């Protein structure tokens, strides 16, 4: 993959057609997959190949495309796992877990088993768990996938709020309405490299981007100005 | 010690016994490839099959090579029933539960054999038990040679079934993509049960091939099956050629290490290979990356 250095703005969506390597990129950054070459740098240090748990301690957290709640535990206990990263005692961690549970809107479900949540609830739980680890950088992998428009509308403010806490967010997303409304700066990935970046409206009109999604010659067919 | 006159028979005998191991391993790898579980009951089923072959001879006067025709379908049905009506329902689809249930069944079968038949070792006397074939530099036991040929015949038959029959295709489909197969209308519970039945039938055939030259007691199956586990892991879980090649390799390895280290320590050799393979390359020689 081409070397890229990225000064992160607060929320940076990463879009691109399927197979572009977006989740792979996340997995490499978060230590789940080994890169075949190149390096990952964070805050001036080389963190390539560090295992996920150590990266989490550094402040890099990620959510998964297919939600993975701890099924046998309650919602509160799920968040507790994350909270314990920086809080040793049960009482301190519980306080953090409860607070974050409320912040993401799961307050009334804290005692429920995690597997009784709907998809939207589970997405919030993924967020809450990652948040509880006190991250500085949060990698959100298609956190809006599978949500209907009203659920998307409800969760976007939660994500925007994370930014206000000073967390840098890198999000893989296909849901364009969210991308457009959340971000000032978008990255487009195709076939393992960044092919475009910039303000959302500009990027989606870029013929290179259109061709990446729709195929060779599509930009010409559709005309260069695309997307209202 | 290293002279050809000693080595060659050891290697040949290793190949022959390896073929029997292959039959046991085939059943195991088939079950793993499709159900994705390690069948801990395999050893106990082998012991049970040996007892069945023993009594087929003693009570019904059936030569083991004839008894096969009776026992293979019988044990197929047993395996089918076990998976369809006990293991499947009891596990609720959870892999950890399946491990425990097959372990429980193993304990039940083995200890029932122990309770009913005690721990005494029995053997049968067939007229050809001591017949040998002259292969130039050495003599090979007829029963072992028959076993060798039969094992390959069974492997071939299995391959034919898997490749050309509808059932075989269904099994391969479920092994590759269970959900998709289900959506295409395949009855997964039935396929699982058929696979288990086939694996158990392999064990029954192996028992009939073994019994002329081996002995019977409730724990024999365990010893065999640990070797079979080693083979399956070495050859790659779910890989049929892996099981065959691995079995022959292990057969030869066991024969040679028995030659150099003696009986009981030879067994350790197998286990150590097993542990090392598991730690270093769990996907085996032919298997996909785990």
């Amino acid at each position, binding site marked *: 993959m081409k070397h890229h250095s990225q000064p992160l703005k607060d929320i940076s969506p990463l879009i691109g057609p399927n197979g572009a390597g977006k989740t792979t990129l996340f997995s490499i950054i978060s230590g789940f997959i080994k890169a075949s070459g190149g390096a990952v740098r964070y805050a001036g240090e080389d963190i390539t190949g560090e295992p996920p748990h150590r990266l989490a301690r550094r402040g890099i957290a990620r959510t998964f495309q297919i939600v993975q*709640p701890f099924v046998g535990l309650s919602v509160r206990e799920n968040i507790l796992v994350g909270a314990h990263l920086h809080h040793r005692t049960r009482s301190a961690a519980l306080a953090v877990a409860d607070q974050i549970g409320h912040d993401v809107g799961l307050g009334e479900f804290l005692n429920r088993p995690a597997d009784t*949540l709907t998809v939207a609830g589970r997405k919030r739980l993924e967020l809450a768990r990652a948040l509880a680890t006190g991250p500085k950088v949060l990698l959100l992998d298609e956190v809006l996938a599978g949500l209907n428009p009203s659920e998307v509308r409800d969760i976007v403010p939660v994500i925007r709020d994370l930014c206000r806490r000073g967390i840098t967010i890198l999000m893989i997303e296909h849901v364009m309405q969210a991308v457009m409304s959340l971000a000032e700066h978008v990255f487009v990935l195709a076939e393992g490299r960044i092919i475009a970046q910039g303000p959302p409206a500009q990027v989606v009109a870029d013929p290179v981007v259109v061709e990446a999604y729709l195929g060779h010659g599509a930009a010409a067919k559709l005309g260069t100005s695309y997307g209202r | 010690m290293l002279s050809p006159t000693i080595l060659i028979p050891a290697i040949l005998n290793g190949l022959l016994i390896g073929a029997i191991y292959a039959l046991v391993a085939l059943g195991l790898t088939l079950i793993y490839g499709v159900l994705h579980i390690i069948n801990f009951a395999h050893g106990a089923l082998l012991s049970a099959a040996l007892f069945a072959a023993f009594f087929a001879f003693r009570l019904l006067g059936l030569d083991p090579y004839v008894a096969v025709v009776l026992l293979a379908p019988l044990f197929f049905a047993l395996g089918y029933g076990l998976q369809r009506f*006990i293991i499947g329902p009891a596990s609720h689809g959870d*892999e950890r539960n399946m491990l425990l249930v097959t372990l429980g069944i193993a304990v039940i079968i*083995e200890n029932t054999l122990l309770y009913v038949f005690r721990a005494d070792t029995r053997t049968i006397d067939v007229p050809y038990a001591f017949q040998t074939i002259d292969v130039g530099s050495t003599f090979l036991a007829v029963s072992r040679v028959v076993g060798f040929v039969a094992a390959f015949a069974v492997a071939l038959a299995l391959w034919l079934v898997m490749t050309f029959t509808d059932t075989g295709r269904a099994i391969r489909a479920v092994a590759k993509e269970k959900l998709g197969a289900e959506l295409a209308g395949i009855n997964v519970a039935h396929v699982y049960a058929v696979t288990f039945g086939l694996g158990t039938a392999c064990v029954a055939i192996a028992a009939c091939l073994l019994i002329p030259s081996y002995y019977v007691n409730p724990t024999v199956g365990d010893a065999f099956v640990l070797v079979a586990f080693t083979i399956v892991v070495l050859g790659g879980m779910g890989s049929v050629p892996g099981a065959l090649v691995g079995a022959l390799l292990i057969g030869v390895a066991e024969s040679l290490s028995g030659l150099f280290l003696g009986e009981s320590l030879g067994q350790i050799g197998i286990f150590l290979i097993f*542990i090392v393979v598991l730690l270093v390359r769990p996907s085996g020689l032919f298997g996909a990356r785990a």
Partner: protein
Amino acid sequence: MKALIPTAAVLAVLAAVPLVVHSNVTLNFLVVALMIALAGQGWNILGGYGGQYSFGHAAFFGTGAYVTASLQVRYGINAWIGFAAGIAAGAVLGAVLGALTFRSGLRGSYFALVTLAFAEVLRIIASVAPITGAGVGTLIKLDLGIRNLQFQSRAAFYWIILALVGVSLVTAQLIERSRFGIWLIAVRENEDAAKALGVNVNGVKLAAMVMSAAITAAAGCFYAQYFLFVDSGIAYGTWISIQALLTPIIGGVGTVFGPLLGALVVKSLGEAAKLLTGDAPGLDLIIYGAVLVLVIWFTPRGLIGGLTQARKLLMRRSGPAAPSAGEARHG
């Protein structure tokens, strides 16, 4: 430490038993049941809380037994020190086994297989190695006295094993309430998710394995002192591997009292079977196998899990604040 009250209560009740029960047969039964419970408590830490199912916990039991016995018989070492050494040996073995297997990423079926193989290797070695007495086994000389950890009265043995079980109960309780405990449970539920949340999965598993091994080894050390004889089949046989996993599963995996409850139930069943059909080899294990299958089938969370579920169901049906099914689904 309010949470330790149930444990203290249970221990107090159990400790009082020898004061009212004087039958040696019953005391013997209870001693053995508690020993099995201890082995199960050990298994439960790695298997119940951690979700790593070992099929070869005999490896630790047997090592504890042999080290305790051998140190006394061959080197004249004091029984109490031998006991402690046996536990330490078990812990070291656990560390080695854990380091090897977890570093290789072995899980599920593979992990069960490797532990099974390990126990078998040890059994074979013990059956031929001179240091363990090979086929003949190791016999500890009968020499009553507190210095030799040998007692005339069963009650003394009973209290010792009860104390060990007590330690294991408190350990489980502390684990449940600690950061380590929630991390261990997270590893059981979903390793990748746990990693992403900062849990050092291999480290946690290793620590659990060491604790688990030490506790089960203690049960082995006790066996050696109580029965004064160890051989390869006793030390490393499948009988103890099976019972070490059976008792937590029946009683309730991942609970504090599960293994204890499971051991009492399992042993009672075994005794009942013997009374009904006579003492024949293999009968008790048949029953254990059947119970294992039945428990997994109908109450996979064991007796305690079943009780908890029943209680939750009752609460949900009768509680005024209980949400309706529709509400419960809203996320």
